[in-house]
C-alpha cells in the first residue's frame, strides 16, 4: 500500500467519524465541530483525487462560509445550546434495517458496475483547466450561476430582514 492509499483511508475515517459525531451528539455546537472535521476530511479526499482547486474551495466555502453561517444560526437561538436536539422517536431498529439495506445495495452496485475509469491519475494544478472550461464549454452554467446567486441573495436578505 502506498502513501496515497494510506492517506485516503485516514481521510475517509476522519470524514465518517466526524459525520458520526455530528449526527449523534446531543449538543448542536459539538455537532457543528464534527461537521468541520468532516469537511476537512472531504477536502483531503479531493486532494488525493487530484482536484486541488475543489479542495481549496471546499475549505473556503464550506468551512469558512457555510459552517460559520450554521454556527451563527445556532447562536441566534438561545435555547439551542442547552437542549437535547435529538428527537424523541429514535426508531433504532427500522433505521438500522433501512441504512443496512441501502449500504448493501450500494456495495453491490459499486462492485458489479462497469465504471468508466479515468485511467492513471496525474497530479497537476487544475485551476487553469477549470478556468478555460468555465469560459468556453461551461459558459452558460457559469452565467446562470450568477443569476442564481443574485436571486438567492435577494431571497435570503428578504427572509432574514426583520420587518
Amino acid at each position, binding site marked *: 500500500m502506498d502513501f496515497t492509499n494510506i492517506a485516503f483511508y485516514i481521510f475517509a475515517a476522519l470524514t465518517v467519524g466526524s459525520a458520526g459525531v455530528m449526527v449523534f451528539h446531543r449538543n448542536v455546537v459539538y455537532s457543528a465541530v464534527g461537521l468541520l472535521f468532516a469537511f476537512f476530511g472531504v477536502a483531503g479526499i479531493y*486532494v488525493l483525487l487530484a482536484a486541488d482547486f475543489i479542495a481549496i474551495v471546499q475549505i473556503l466555502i464550506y468551512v469558512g462560509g457555510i459552517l460559520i*453561517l450554521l454556527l451563527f444560526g445556532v447562536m*441566534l437561538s438561545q435555547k439551542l445550546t442547552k437542549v437535547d436536539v435529538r428527537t424523541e422517536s429514535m426508531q433504532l431498529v427500522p433505521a438500522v434495517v433501512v441504512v443496512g439495506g441501502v449500504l448493501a445495495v450500494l456495495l453491490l452496485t459499486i462492485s458489479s458496475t462497469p465504471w468508466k475509469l479515468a485511467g492513471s491519475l496525474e497530479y497537476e494544478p487544475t485551476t487553469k483547466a477549470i478556468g478555460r472550461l468555465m469560459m468556453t464549454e461551461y459558459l452558460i452554467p457559469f*452565467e446562470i450561476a450568477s443569476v442564481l*446567486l443574485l436571486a438567492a441573495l435577494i431571497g435570503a436578505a428578504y427572509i432574514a430582514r426583520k420587518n
Partner: protein
Amino acid sequence: MLFNFANVLTFIVFGAVFVGINITLSRILQARNPHPVKLSTYECGELPEGDSWIQFNIRFYVIALIFLIFEVEIVFLFPWATVFKELGLFAFVEMMIFVFILLVGLAYVWVKGDLEWDKSTAVPDPALAPSAARQELTEAIAS
C-alpha cells in the same frame, strides 16, 4: 501538486503534535492545588453574571449570508484570473457580465440597509437618555 499539499499536511501534523506535546507536558509538570477562588472565571474577584451563551444579534446572520454569496462569487474569479489573458476579450466580457449581475445584488442589499450595522442612529435610545427628574436634580445641584 500532491507534493505541495504534502507540505500542508506536514504543517498540520506538526502543528497538532506541537500543541499536543505542550499540553501533555504542562499536565505532567504543573503543580495542582485547586482552590475555589483560583477556579473562578476572573481571579480578580469579579463574579460573572448569567450565561456566556447569549443570543446573537440577527445582523451577524444577515452579514454572514451576504458574505457567503460573495465568497462564492470570488471563488469563480480565481480560475478566470489564471486564463483570462489567453482567452482575451471574450472571457473578460463574460466575467464582467457575471460581476455586474452580482453587483446589482450588492447594490440591492446596500440600498435596502442590510449592510447597516447601527440601524437606529436617528432615534436615540430612550433608555440611555437621562430622565427628566434626573436632569432637574443635576441642575438643582449645579445651582
